[in-house]
């Protein structure tokens, strides 16, 4: 009970409309917390360095994290159904090196780009089929996907492959600038993926089915929703996002490298959780995941500004993750108590 009164006291300061909104949408709280942390980070860094929140820096934030953003959208789909996809880092490496290798062999990019995304989607399909039709736990099924994609990446090439194709490099080098603000085609791709992802999750039948499956799979099935198709599709989407991210990363770094993205799946999961998606499924927002990625990217930039070891990035991300799971835990416990 004390927590509820504390809640009431804290919300008393807000206008009544906002208060009603917050109590109705308690699942949005973690996402609001993420936005708050993002703003605090920016304000704090600006006060500390004096030249942090500049158009150049903010544009670079989107540019440097475009591939993470794309992965995070796919991961949000999977996690909201209550699953998990460990394979995204490896898929990123596989599709990236495949794309670079095919381009260097002179294959037309009009063929390479769809193929890259298809390969990612195919690995997602394998995982989805294992999960849905063979009752394999998502953790193990996507683990198989992780091994498969990583091994195949080495099969494609053991060394890094440079990309010379001007069309692909254009994705990275072309800057649409307004004053000092700029955005690259890769950034536009990432933002488009976020927008499409958010739209699909919120405004389509498929998106609502994803929430229903994550909330209670049994009920969703009894309601006659397409549970099987939805559960396979989210992994295919995550895989396709992995393929697209591999393409973007290859354009970004100008090369494909089979050791890319080791541990990236963890960064992505952390960003998605920080953005307010519950790992137990049923709750989460694509836009929240975007904020989570920006929090991650900002911490990385702050640390390089300070000239500190990049090792601190992972420590701070770990601590933030801890903070957020505790916040989520409190919210879950409170809503259970209310029932």
């Amino acid at each position, binding site marked *: 009970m004390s927590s509820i009164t504390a809640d009431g006291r804290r919300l008393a300061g807000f206008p009544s409309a906002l208060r009603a909104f917050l109590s109705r949408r308690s699942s949005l709280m973690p996402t609001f917390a993420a936005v708050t942390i993002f703003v605090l980070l920016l304000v704090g860094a600006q006060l500390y360095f004096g030249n942090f929140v500049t158009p150049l820096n903010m544009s670079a934030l989107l540019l440097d994290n475009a591939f993470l953003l794309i992965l995070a959208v796919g991961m949000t789909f999977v996690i909201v159904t209550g699953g*998990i996809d460990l394979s995204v880092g490896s898929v990123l490496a596989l599709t990236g090196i495949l794309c670079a290798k095919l381009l260097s062999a002179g294959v037309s990019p009009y063929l390479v780009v769809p193929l890259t995304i298809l390969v990612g989607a195919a690995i997602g399909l*394998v995982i989805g089929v*294992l999960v849905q*039709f*063979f*009752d*394999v*736990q998502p*953790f*193990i*099924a996507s*683990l*198989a*996907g*992780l*091994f*498969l994609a*990583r*091994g*195949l990446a*080495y*099969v494609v090439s*053991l060394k890094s492959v440079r990309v010379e194709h001007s069309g692909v490099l254009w994705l990275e080098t072309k800057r649409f600038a307004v004053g000092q603000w700029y955005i690259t085609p890769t950034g536009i791709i990432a933002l488009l993926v976020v927008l499409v992802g958010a739209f699909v999750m919120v405004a389509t039948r498929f998106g609502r089915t994803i929430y229903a499956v994550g909330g209670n799979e049994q009920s969703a099935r009894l309601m006659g929703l397409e549970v099987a198709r939805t559960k396979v599709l989210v992994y295919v989407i995550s895989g396709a996002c992995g393929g697209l991210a591999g393409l973007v990363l290859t354009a970004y770094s100008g090369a494909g490298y*089979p050791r890319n993205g*080791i541990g990236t799946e*963890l*960064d992505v*999961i*952390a960003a998605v*959780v920080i953005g307010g998606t519950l*790992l*137990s499924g049923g709750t989460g927002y694509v836009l929240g995941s975007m904020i989570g990625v920006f929090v991650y990217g900002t911490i990385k930039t702050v640390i390089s500004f300070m000239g500190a*070891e990049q*090792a*601190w*990035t*992972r*420590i701070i*991300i*770990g*601590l933030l*993750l*801890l903070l957020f*799971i*505790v916040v989520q*835990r409190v919210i879950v416990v409170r809503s259970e108590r209310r029932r």
Partner: protein
Amino acid sequence: MTRVTKHHLFWPVACLIALIALNTAVRPRFIKVTLREGELYGAPIDILRQSAPLMLVALGMTLVIATRGIDLSVGAVMAISGAVTLTIIDGSGSSGSLGTVLMAMAAGVGLSLLLGVWNGFLVAVAKIQPIIATLVLMLAGRGVALLITGGFITTVVSPPLKYFASGYLFWVPFAFIIAVVAIVVVALVERRTALGVLTEAVGINPEASRLAGVRSRGIIFTAYVASAGLAGVAGIIYSSNIMAADANAAGELIELYAILAVVLGGTSLLGGKFSIAGTVIGVLIIQTLQSTILFLGVPSAEAPVFFAAVVILVVLIQAPRVHRVAGSLVRRGRARETGSQVEKAKVAA
């Protein structure tokens, strides 16, 4: 015959024997073990020696998985333990003395146990999903290890430390002896006391076992502490093997291999019944497979493709749908058989 095939260790053992047979068929030298200057040599001995770190980690993982949990942080704990141990030895100025090395190892394992307490607290007391609770340490742990080593790969020259991974005791690699001791201790504690049964009870139904008076919180706590402690020892063996603390590479992907070993050994990820012998065989399968892949001339980097194939094969064998299909095929086959027998009987009559 059905009793043999129904035994929970049948498939893992069959798989291991098949692997060994395959290797021996392709290169008869594989199975040969020779005694040279009081030390055993040969491919099987190499496999046993190299399997030690994974064996320790997988043992701990078995206990954690039995409680319905998972410990993703073992690789990070290995990195931290190795980093602490080698940094202490490096800074002591007497890297050759046994006392220094033992003290440094104690510090590494001690810190690992503390990290296990941290994991146990998050899972058992704060009731956070194990996958996420241990993800925190998995993410932060490698960063901590990098800070300890200052971002470099710390190398040391220390004969006592080298003995840990490369030495022999009674003709057998010392690292393997450590693994055997760990297996025996865990097996005795779990199977000769009620702890194993209680752990399975917690894994099968946490709520019911709590109502039945099982102190599930303490049991879950212990599992994570044991897992981290064993990972700490594994980290020391790893760094003793290369005589360096590599915060990035130590225990890379080992959590996944350990989980794979546990699953190969027939322990379900859903918790409950667990098999220590199964895990031991699972580890040996993985290590033999790795050696096979190397022998076949596949670049070790491409090995994950084979592991993916193995994982998919194993989970398919265990999948209920496959069992149903196989079951109906067998039944149909039998029906046809009895049908043809009936016809034969008719013809005879």
